[in-house]
């Protein structure tokens, strides 16, 4: 009998081009997503060395990080220029580089444009069992479909463009097994925040995580994307969920997914992609789903997680001295004091979007809370930024845009928006945002901005009450 393998080992083994004795392998990359921020220097490197893109057909480029989310065309349908000269230059570089190197390009005004990690699955570019990279750490998201997907730096972007491979060493494997079911009102975002709170921001470093348990089997692909997306916030470069019929049903008919006989052959192959009985993980963590409440971050690391029913922790309560010092620094930055109930923390800004939570189910969850309600008077700005033009159109077809607008939200064009403070959508210094994004780092949403990471439903709850709130009291 063949050796029992984990899902990660199966995908890895199927992609080894060359193996060296020291453990480094050349791994073939099946899919490469490219965006405007981490690619200009890579294309420049190719140009200087006189190299070409080896497999433009396995590459897809789209702008997302710094494109403004305000209207992109005027009333007559003419494209509006980007005001910021540096952002414009970066976008123009991608617009030049993609055709110059023969790379398929989805432009900013295309209905298919959106956040790389939303459009990959949506277009069927992401497939189970493929290796996928992008110059963005949240590439981990695509692991939701059983792809071995991870973020890379610009030198590696250049390496993949030139060779369609990477030189890698096999990571260790880690199982995160969730037992039981999520309680009502608790979403995939709450679950992944809880997991990161449990294992820490470096808990998965050096590992590829596989999420296992009934809770993931019962979860939609959208929910799985939220989970896998934040693997990197626990330090894991990649997170996997075994593909199943939910995955296949999601992919069937997508524009870039296999068709006809190819589809049948693909599904037959994908059905082999699971961790074999008896396969060993290097590390295993068990989480009880029944313990989980809607989760919120209080500090400046995604591991700073508490249930909404809890209080701002006392830095003195941490055993580790460096964590105590870090916690006090975080509280100073966040303008919070120990012992304050989370539900007494006022917020001024709401951001619903990002590659973590900007898909149709996220918008539906937020709209369900907002329906018939209005934003509290203390809310200075509330943005909803759909993850792609297609998500936006679907939400409009379902009437969700009306619910958001009537509640007092701005309904925007797709992009990374206020997740990362490199486009006009920012949170002012010293002000507080309930955000569905993935990082609460110092200055992440703009210099001095204070971020609380939450689920879409929790962001909507904060909008209507004007403070962090338990959404379960509103539904």
């Amino acid at each position, binding site marked *: 009998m063949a050796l029992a393998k984990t899902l990660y080992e199966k995908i890895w083994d199927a992609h080894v081009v060359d193996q060296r004795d020291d453990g480094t392998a050349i791994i*073939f990359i099946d899919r490469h997503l490219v965006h405007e921020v981490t690619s200009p220097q890579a294309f420049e490197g190719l140009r200087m060395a006189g*190299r070409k893109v080896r497999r433009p*057909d396995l590459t897809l480029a789209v702008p997302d990080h710094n494109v403004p989310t305000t209207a992109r065309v005027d009333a007559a349908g003419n494209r509006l220029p980007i005001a910021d000269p540096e952002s414009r230059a970066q976008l123009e570089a991608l617009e030049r580089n993609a055709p110059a190197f023969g790379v398929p390009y989805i432009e900013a005004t295309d209905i298919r444009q959106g956040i790389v990690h939303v459009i990959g699955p949506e277009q069927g570019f992401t497939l189970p069992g493929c290796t996928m990279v992008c110059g963005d*750490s949240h590439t981990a998201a695509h692991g939701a479909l059983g792809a071995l997907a*991870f973020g890379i730096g610009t030198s590696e972007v250049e390496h993949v463009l030139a060779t369609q491979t990477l030189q890698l060493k096999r990571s260790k494997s880690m199982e995160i097994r969730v037992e039981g079911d999520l309680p009502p009102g608790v979403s995939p975002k709450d679950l992944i925040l809880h997991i990161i709170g449990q294992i820490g921001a*470096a808990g998965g470093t050096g590992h590829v995580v596989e999420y296992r348990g009934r809770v993931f089997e019962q979860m939609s692909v959208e929910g799985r994307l939220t989970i896998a997306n934040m693997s990197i916030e626990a330090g894991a470069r990649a997170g996997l969920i075994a593909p199943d019929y939910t995955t296949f049903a999601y992919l069937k008919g997508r524009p870039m997914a296999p068709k006809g006989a190819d589809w049948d052959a693909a599904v037959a192959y994908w059905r082999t992609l699971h961790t074999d009985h008896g396969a060993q993980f290097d590390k295993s963590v068990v989480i009880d789903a029944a313990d989980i409440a809607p989760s919120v971050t209080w500090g400046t690391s995604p591991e700073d997680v508490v249930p909404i029913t809890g209080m701002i922790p006392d830095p003195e309560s941490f055993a580790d001295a*460096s964590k105590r010092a870090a916690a006090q620094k975080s509280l100073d930055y966040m303008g919070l004091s120990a012992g304050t109930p989370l539900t007494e923390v006022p917020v001024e800004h709401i951001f619903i979007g990002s590659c973590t939570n900007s898909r149709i189910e996220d918008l539906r969850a937020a709209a369900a809370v907002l329906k018939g309600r209005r934003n509290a008077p203390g809310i200075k700005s509330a943005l909803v930024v759909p993850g792609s033009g297609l998500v936006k159109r679907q939400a409009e077809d379902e009437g969700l845009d009306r619910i958001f607008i009537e509640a007092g939200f701005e309904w925007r064009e797709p992009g990374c928006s206020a997740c990362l403070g490199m486009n006009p959508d920012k949170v002012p210094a010293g002000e507080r945002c309930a955000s569905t994004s993935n990082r609460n780092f*110092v*200055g992440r949403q703009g210099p001095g901005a204070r971020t609380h990471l939450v689920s879409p439903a929790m962001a909507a709850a904060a909008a209507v009450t004007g403070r962090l709130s338990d959404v379960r009291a509103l539904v």
Partner: protein
Amino acid sequence: MQPIERVEGRAIPFGRKNVDTDIIIPAQWLKTISREGLGQGAFESVRAEPGNIFDDPEFARAPILIAGDNFGCGSSREHAAWALIDLGITAVIAPSFSDIFSSNAFKNGILTVVLPQEAVDRLMEVAATDPIHIDLESQTVTTPFQDRFTFEIDPFRKTCLMQGLDEIGLTLGKADAISAYEQQVSAQRPWLVPATA
């Protein structure tokens, strides 16, 4: 890439844990199409603090940075490595590094030295007043006070760093193996990797 055999000089005793790449270089600095000049934005939020160590003239152009656990976590932005280089930093010592940062650092000839917390604490102490010496060949960190710590490094990375090798060039040397792989996969799974014309 410049070959690197040793790094010696003052070390900035920063010490903080979970230093994310947004701290190393905030997003507003990523709108560049060049690798140069990012030192200006490096550690911007830390440098806003009065009396911060990065603006202490004693550590100007110090080639080594000492930090806490999980250095370089967060975003994959290679701008973080470029910003460190622009500051003159060619080695970082910490108890652990994020996977993506350590790869980015390596590709830019920055040495990441993993040492246990106790060793890092001792080096923090020394760094306040004295220089530190890192020798890649012998994989050691030494101080003027007879401290000697050895560190592990991947042998392939060590060779590349010491010889300043171009990794893309190395991989392209395996072009035949890549083509053979492509042919094999396009025969088995054409829907994943189509045959090339």
